[in-house]
């Protein structure tokens, strides 16, 4: 790790001004992605602005049928929240399947979506549930927030403050984990809106990060059963291929995980 200066921000505005004064600063969430990258000397921010002690950015509250989750809320807190389990069981189970206990106790939802790893779990939930990302500057629909592999609509100095999830009639997530890292090799989030519309979002498999499966959505709107998606797979040409799985294998996993998510929902 290169030398860096740590700052603890007490409020969103303080975090923004600390960042404005930094040479080449970075916000620090749970550090589960940023710190390993720094330890491997692949990133060398001059300053770290810790946003996890900001009271406004923590905690989970009801929001109509849905929930609002502060950006500094840990995966563990989301996975064990009664509110989330009751309203969006798919989201709670997703958070409970991220990494391992150590990661879940440190990593935050804000850090995860700001990082937008193509194999991260949360992006699938945000897109399928039609969540809104609240930042220090604006509110963004999830589909506008995630712009590509490791890319988001965030400005350098913009902070994710919270994520607002609308309610859903049913939600479920099925993930095939990479055996080594336990990130998703294919993760499919299925959400059924109160109006009967269905959204299916896939993470882990796409070359540009999270994407929706409209063929599956149409099929499920007519017949919400695993069989409805059994014959539908994404085009392998658009999928990731690496030492852990070829694009063709990932295409199969998307179908299998979609079936399992529908089964669970």
């Amino acid at each position, binding site marked *: 790790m290169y030398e860096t200066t740590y700052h603890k921000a007490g409020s969103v505005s303080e975090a923004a001004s600390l960042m404005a004064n930094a040479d080449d600063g970075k916000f620090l969430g749970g550090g589960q992605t940023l710190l390993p990258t720094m330890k491997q000397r692949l990133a060398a921010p001059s300053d770290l602005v810790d946003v996890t002690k900001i009271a406004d950015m923590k905690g989970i509250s009801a929001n109509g049928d849905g929930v609002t989750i502060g950006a500094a809320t840990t995966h563990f807190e989301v996975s064990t929240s009664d509110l989330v389990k009751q309203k969006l069981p798919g989201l709670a189970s997703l958070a409970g399947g991220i990494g391992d206990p150590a990661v879940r106790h440190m990593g935050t939802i804000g850090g995860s979506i700001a990082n937008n790893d193509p194999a991260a779990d949360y992006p699938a939930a945000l897109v399928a549930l039609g969540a809104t990302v609240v930042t220090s500057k604006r509110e963004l629909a999830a589909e506008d927030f995630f712009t590509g592999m490791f890319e988001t609509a965030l400005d350098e100095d913009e902070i994710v403050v919270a994520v607002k999830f609308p309610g859903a009639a049913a939600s479920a997530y099925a993930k095939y984990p990479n055996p080594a890292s336990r990130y998703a090799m294919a993760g499919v989030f299925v959400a059924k809106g109160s109006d009967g519309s269905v959204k299916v979002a896939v993470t882990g498999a796409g070359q540009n990060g999270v994407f929706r499966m409209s063929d599956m959505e149409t099929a499920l709107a007519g017949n919400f059963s695993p069989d409805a998606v059994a014959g539908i797979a994404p085009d392998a040409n658009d999928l990731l291929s690496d030492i852990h799985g070829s694009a063709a294998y990932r295409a*199969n996993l998307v179908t299998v995980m979609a079936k399992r998510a529908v089964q669970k929902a």
Partner: protein
Amino acid sequence: MAVEGIGARALRKEDKRFITGKGKYTDDMTMPGMGYAAFVRSPHAHAKVKGIDASAALEMPGVDAVLTGDQLVGNGIGNLICGWMIHSKDGSPMKMGGWRALEPEIVRHVGQAVAVVVADTQAQARDAADAVVVDYEELPAVIDPLAALEAGAPQIHPEAEGNLIYDWEIGDEAATNAAFEKAAHVTRMEIHNNRLVPNAMEPRAALAGYDAAEEHYTLYTTSQNPHVARLVLSAFYNVAPENKLRVIAPDVGGGFGSKIYIYPEEMVCLWASKRVGRPIKWVSDRTEAFLTDAHGRDHRSEAELALDADNKILGLRVKTVANLGAYMSLFSSSVPTYLYATLLSGQYDIPAIHANVKTVYTNTTPVDAYRGAGRPEATYLLERIMETAAREVGLSPAEFRRKNFIRSFPHQTPVIMCYDAGDYDATLDAALKAADYDGFAARKAEAASRGKLRGIGLSCYIEACGIAPSAAVGSLGAGVGLWESAEVRVNPVGSIEVLTGSHSHGQGHETTFAQLISERFGLDTNAVSIVHGDTDKVQFGMGTYGSRSGAVGMSAIVKALDKVEAKAKKIAAHLMEASEGDIQIEGGELKVAGTDKKLTFTEVALAAYTAHNLPEGMEPGLKEGAFYDPTNFTFPAGTYVCEVEVDPDTGKTEVVNFVAADDFGNIINPMIVEGQVHGGITQGIGQALLENASYDENGQLLTASYMDYCMPRADDVPSYNLSTHVTACPGNPLGMKGCGEAGAIGSPPAVINAITDAIGDNNLSMPASPEKVWALYHAGLKQAAE
């Protein structure tokens, strides 16, 4: 604690300090004024070093020095050695390329060190290492061992034309060919043994200091064999004469073979400590460990098994290409030869065997012994082809093996080994029973009703431990003898220190070795301390690897104990005016048989040291040493049964049951033995399902962190069903065979045989990744449909 002798499940004495975080590892050691080393490493797999510019680095805060290979060579520091000479079948010696601890001219694998920075802090040293500018001219690299042997492949070392190190053979080729000519059935397979990264929990580390007044060096290091390290550092690397060099291997957090070798970094720290004039510490980070700890396995083989009409084995023919990486590590040459091909007879009576082994240089990390070393490769090859042959001829794999078992001992195989004792039916029977082999069909049907493919696989392994005798291994090319030493020091108050040349880095010697003394003298194990890992304390020893500490190390202790006991009895007889033959040792006392006369062990020890009343002519003191050189290898063996369920949708394998029935000879501490087997099987399941060192075509290691290199975790393995069955080893006083590697040796073929049974395709290679299994299964379904 208590009197816990042979066979007691004594809790490990060392665990208190390990579990409470009080172990003392090399990185816990300090020396006044010490600085830190960081290495400048090649980002290329093959490149010319055209220049090294350290000027910017030398200006950075805290930096003392930047040293390069030219300075190392200029100081007369020798090349790294390979300690086992192998001759090709044409009689020519192996072709070894030079390996310098800091490379001044041509780097040959990613991560090879070209310079070292010494600075006040670790962070300063690393920052400055980044600032050293090395001018490389990239050369074409070759990664695949078969490609390296092709005409026109990039030449890695001038000494080894065509990258071929040796072309070696064992067995009778003509007799083997003749066996194949009369065969009723021949099974042929291509068998790969995947490359592994050892991944000891504690990475390598060194702390070296030079005392200018005494002209004496001290090296703390993560070694499985500190005396061998000192010998090599002195005799071959010319760092210091042995009497001027103390090597200490304190608590060491796992080795699995990777800490046998004397690597560049430890040697550079030692050399640089004098040159720079301050003690120097280096601790490998995990990335350096992936790139520079000697890897394991990496064999490509073709195997053929010839059967007669009655399904008795007539012969085995094997061709293996073994990838040794960019340099020949310390014991690399012996692994694919005498530790591998000599085990190809397995548990079977095979009249004719011929094996040809070619070893090859590639632009990858050096490969050397890793838990099992050669024996897992032999077992995997043989047990895969045994299972496949049984399936081809339509025999139960268990019955096919039984039909070919060796049943009379000693048994001379066609590949050097002479097995001394064993009962292969006993371990097979026990394993089949524990696994309910006969009930498998019902379990398979039940799994099918849940949409799962269930399979069962066997492995009947044999291995050779306690490599020896010294004269024999010497005649096969070993540069060292493979005996062990021990010294038993009874203190005047009757407590005991046992000095051993073995080294514990997870094996629990402090407990098991103490149990020997507890058994012999009836003393509390707390009255016994085991001293090891320091060349200033223990006179000499060969260290721990190859499951040798029990069969060889403890045998040396037994010899020393015999001498202590004899002297103690003489003293007791003299003091109690009895005849020596009437003295019995029991419960910590020396008694005169048939009387109530007795002395405590403490009283006898004290008498030895006060020396007021010793037998005429006897020297004072109670301290004896012994060297033990075994008469043969030992041959642990057993049967493993693995049962799996494969998810046909994803190809994911779950190991649902694993049975191990082992014959380790006599056992000192069953709990510790079970721990060894648990770890070994888990490593074997890791190799079979998860682990793989994967390079891209440019020689970059793609699996250089735990995000991509998959180590087995608790939820990847089931609870194991273990049992042991004893045929005592006739070759050593305790009748022990060894248990350290068996799990890793026996398990991979059992796992793969189970998966191939489940999916109905024998051509599965390790690691059996979900994608591979899924693709094979579905290709099979497609073929069946056509």
